Structure formats: C-alpha cells, structure tokens
C-alpha cells in the first residue's frame, strides 16, 4: 500500500519539487491577500476578472517557455501577438457592415489569417535561428523590432477598435460556467504538456536544451526541432493576440509591451531553467496565477502599477538567486555524499 502511494506521488505532480514549491507559494499568496484585503480580493468578481486576465499571459509564457526549453529565448512574442491581432482585426472591420454585422465565416477567416501571420512570423524566427545560426536573443530582438515596426508603419500607430460583437463573445463569454479564455488556455496547456512529455519532439527539445552538442552527435536533426519550437511559439503568440483582441475589442501595435518582462518572470518563476532542458507547463500556469494574484492583490491594496513592476523584477531576481543558491547546495551535498561512500 505504502509503495503504491509512493509510486503515485513520484509519478504524479508531487514528483516535481519546483511544482510542489509553487503550489505552496500559490496557497501562501492566496492566504496573504485574503487576510490583508478580504473584502476586495476574496470576492467572486475578483476571481472572475483574474480568470479573464490569466490566459493571455499564460499562453505567451508557454510560448517563451518552449524556446527557453531549447536554451534559447523568444522576445518577439508580443510583436507577433499584436501583428496577428491587427491583421485579424483589420479583416473583421473591413468585412463588417454598418450595423456591426458580420458572418461567422469571416470571423473564422480573420482568425485563421491572424494565426497564419503567427506561423509566418515564427517561421522567420526559425529561419534566422535554426538555419542561419543567429543567437536567439539577437534574432528575436531584431524580429520583435521588425514585427512591431511593420505594425506601427501599417497602422500609423493607431489602434483598430470596435470589433464585432460575435468575436468579443469569445474573449468575454463563458463555457460551462468557466470563462472561455481560461478554457482555451487549459486546452493549449494540455496540448503543449502532451507535446513536451509524450512526443518525440518534446523529448528532443529537452535533450537539445540539456546538451546541444550531444544532441547534434545523436543526429536527431536538432535544427529541425529548434525550427519547430519557434514556429509553435509564433502560433501560440498569435492565439494570445487573438484572445487579447477579443477580450478588449481592440488591437494596437503597442499593446502589452510590459508582457515580455512579465512572461519571462512567469517562466523563470515557473521553474524553467533559462539555460534550457527543464521545465513544466504546470509550473508556468501556476506561476501565472501567482503573479496575477499578486497584481490583483496589489490593486486591492491600492498599490500603484509601478510598484507591481518593481515586484515583478524583484521576484525574477530573487527566484534566480534562490535557484543558484539551492543548486549549489544540492551539488555540494551530492559531492559530499559520493565522497562519504
């Protein structure tokens, strides 16, 4: 019986120390803000609004996570999501009649066009990183400027707003009582989780992140794997962009610039090693929820948004410091153990 329990716990979520820590952290944050601001924080309205805000950041973070698992990074996520949202929004506003009516077909077509933009942008990143061997930071920094620049150039920096009602229903509606974006996020998280843990592509991604040289010598087609991760990252970013557009009924070239820092904070807090090779989707989703609670909690306590920015940076640096300290201690302990035996 005991053995079975142990197997269950090692096979399940608890096996991952980082995820366990994060669950503790989530509970702590929840209790902390509930105690300090029960009336505002611990209300159904607040939880509902959090459930609408979490998905976009979670999906963008999952996109960053994929590239970080290979040891790279994707800074162009926000550029891609805005470009995708703008294209979709543009098509919708063009096909909308005076009264704001539009056929569902056109909405779907517009979304598909947005997704296509995401795939193309991801493919551009892939060409630069996987084929031309440009360092991921630099390549995505450049494409981020490019995508953002094209979006500003085409729109002249003006946002496209007043999107059709049917489209807004996706971002603001509920599915079986749960906010639709949250459901979409869960579907995407499960899909990426499956991709990483159950497919050969996922295994290769982790291998490349652990040791690129070894991956090269094992002839797994490391470039192809890296190319796929950036394409999927582009796809996910475009989905996040569509969700943002449908929630806010607008698309703008400079929306969510702060999301890049936020997404990286989430990913690192979620236990993904920035050098690659290790990380879980559960961690990322939990980390998004923690940060969203902190954000809402700060709001409830009437702290300014800049204080939240300070907290974000602080959390990022603190988590990294703790990671290195614990890592060192663990290595020392294992060295001592092997010396003892």
């Amino acid at each position, binding site marked *: 019986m005991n053995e079975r329990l142990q197997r269950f716990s090692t096979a399940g979520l608890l096996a991952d120390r980082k995820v366990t820590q994060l669950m503790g952290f989530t509970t702590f944050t929840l209790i902390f803000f509930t105690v300090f601001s029960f009336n505002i924080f611990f209300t159904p309205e607040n939880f509902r609004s959090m459930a609408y805000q979490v998905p976009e950041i979670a999906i963008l973070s999952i996109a960053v996570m994929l590239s970080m698992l290979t040891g790279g990074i994707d800074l162009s996520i926000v550029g891609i999501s805005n470009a995708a949202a703008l294209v979709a929004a543009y098509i919708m506003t063009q096909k909308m009649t005076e009264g704001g009516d539009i056929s569902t077909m056109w909405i779907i077509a517009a979304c598909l066009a947005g997704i296509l933009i995401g795939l193309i942008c991801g493919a551009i990143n892939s060409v630069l990183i996987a084929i031309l061997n440009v360092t991921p930071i630099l390549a995505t920094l450049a494409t981020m*400027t490019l995508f*953002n620049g094209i979006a*500003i150039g085409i729109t*002249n920096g003006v946002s496209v707003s007043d999107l059709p009602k049917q489209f807004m229903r996706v971002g603001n509606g509920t599915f079986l009582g749960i906010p639709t974006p949250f459901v979409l996020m869960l579907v995407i998280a499960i899909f990426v989780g499956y991709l990483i843990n159950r497919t050969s592509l996922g295994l290769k991604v982790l291998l490349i992140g652990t040791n690129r040289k070894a991956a090269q010598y094992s002839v797994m087609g490391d470039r192809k794997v890296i190319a796929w991760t950036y394409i999927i990252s582009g796809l996910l970013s475009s989905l996040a962009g569509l969700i943002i557009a449908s929630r806010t009924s607008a698309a703008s070239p400079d929306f969510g610039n702060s999301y890049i820092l936020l997404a990286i904070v989430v990913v690192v807090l979620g236990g993904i090693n*920035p050098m690659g090779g290790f990380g879980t989707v559960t961690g990322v989703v939990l980390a998004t929820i923690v940060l969203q609670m902190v954000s809402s909690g700060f709001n409830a306590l009437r702290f300014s948004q800049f204080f939240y920015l300070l907290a974000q940076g602080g959390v*990022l640096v603190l988590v990294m410091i703790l990671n290195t300290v614990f890592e060192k201690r663990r290595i020392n302990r294992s060295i001592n153990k092997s010396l003892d035996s």
Partner: protein
Amino acid sequence: MNFRKLLRRNETVLIFAIIVFSLVIGSKSPEFFTIANLFDILRSSFVQLIFALGVLIVIISGGIDVSFPIVGIFAGYTAVVIMRKFELNEESVLVPIALAILIGIILGGLNAIAIAGFEIPTLIATLGTAGIFRGFMLSFIGASFISDIPLGLDKFSTADLIKFESEAGTLVRLHVLVIPVALITLAVSLLLNRTIFGRSVYALGGGVESTRRLGISVKRTQAKIYMLVGGLSGLAGILYVSLQRKANPYDLAGSELDVIAAVVLGGASIMGGYGTVFGTVLGVLFINMIKNNLVLLGVSSSWQRAAVGVLLIIGITIQAIGENQKQKRQRSATSKEAE
C-alpha cells in the same frame, strides 16, 4: 593587414553602406548634404553613442544588458530631483553630472551583484533589475514630468561650440558636447585595447573557463564592467535630460533596442570576444542617419522602427553567414590535417 581582409571587415562594409545611403538620399534631396544636417545627426547621436559604448563593453564580455536606458533615466531624473530638493548650486553643470554618474555606478553595482555575485544569466538579471529600477523610480522617487530643470543644465543644452547662420537663413549649431563625447570614445577605446582590464573583457567574451585559467578574476572583471556601464549610462541619462531640457521619468525606456542594434551593426559579436569602438561609432551614426533622414526619402516616420528592424536583421544575417563560413573553413582545415 592585407587588402582582402580589410574589405571583409565590418567597419569597411559599414562605411560603404553609409556612403551609398548618403548618395541615395542626397540625390533625392539636396538638403541632406548640408552642414546643418550633419550637425543634427551628430547631436542626436551623442547620448546614444555613450550608451552604445557601455553596451559594447558588455557585449564584448559575452553578456547583454537591457537595463541601461532605465539606469540612464533613473540617474538623470534622480539627479535633477536631488538638485531641486537640496537646492544645490543652480548654475553648476558638473554637480548634476557627477551625481548622475554616481547613481549610475551604484545601480550598475546592483547589476554586478546579481550577475557576478549570483551568476544569474545577464539577460534575465538585467531584465529583472530594469523592472526593479523603473518600478522604484516611479513609485518612490517621482512619476511626474519636471520641466524646470536646474539652470546650469538648462543652459548647457544650448552651449554651442560653433554657431552661424547658413545661407538658407537657418541657424546651424554644433553642440560643445562633441568634444567630451569624442574624448570618452577615445578613452573607452584605449581602455579596451591598452589596459589589462580591456584585455580581460575580450578574454571573458572569448570563454569564461579559459579566462579563469588565465588567472583573471571573472567576478571582479564582471563587477567592474557592469559598474562602468552603469556610470556611462548615468552620464548619458543626465546629458539626455539636459539636451531635452526636461526630466521625464517615462523617457528612454524601450530605446535599448536601437542602441543594441547600433552596436551589433557595428560588428560587435553578440557571442562575445569581438567588437571595436570604431565600428560602434559608425553603427550609431548609420542608425541615426537613417532614422533622421527616412523622411527625406519619402518614407513616413512611422516606418522608422521597421527600418531599424530590417537593418538589424540584415546586419546579424551577414554576421551569422560570415561566422558559419569561418566555422566551415576551420572544420575542413582540421579534417584535412587529420588526413
């Protein structure tokens, strides 16, 4: 150095690009070839060049810093706030500059603690500290725009070295900053090429482990690098405030890309170990030339950012292709030796 090698150098390519671009714009609008335009390009390059020199040092050492614009505006804004609060000498220019450099060095020191002390990857560390610095400044130091900056700084913005009226009747001005900026550029160049510290920066970019085995303290070198960059950023920040004649805490954030783009276009290798001050100067001038004169080409200013993106992609692609070819040559050379 033989001729072919000279042709392949990044600086040569950049000079060619600058000449070609000047000819294209110049043929379309004669306004381009005026001294006024040249001085304008110089004036808009000062602040960026000082930032770029700092970034160059970091990039040569194999790191990347995205917090420098925030450090700059933090230092510039805070220096102005301190000047006003303690009613320090209104007329002085050197006091706020010294204050800003000091604040920059302190912030750079915090970066150094995160990077050298705790071995956090540089991009992540500076992203984090950028958030911290910006959040701290806007929450605790001030979030409001200061338009009446100390008199000395205000006057400094119009301190011109050369000033005359052109034939077209417009005022042509060359700011006095051109001299100190040139001196700083020279100093950084000497620092990188003629001192032990400079050589250890290059060594660090070449390889961390080999640097350690050479007997160079990696941590100490990194700490010095990030403090130096902090100081340079602080200086750039206060000069920006002075030239703009206002201290706006929301400024500069987001300008890191243009500076990094200029340094990379200037031939610095993002993997570390290679980069020249001359290339960086050319890179900064090139980017500013394009940003200032796209309008003359009939391209609307909203396409500026896209143009920088395209340039950056072209620059890194050329660099990457060169790097790949070099590796291939090395590989075939070693396999030939093995035979």
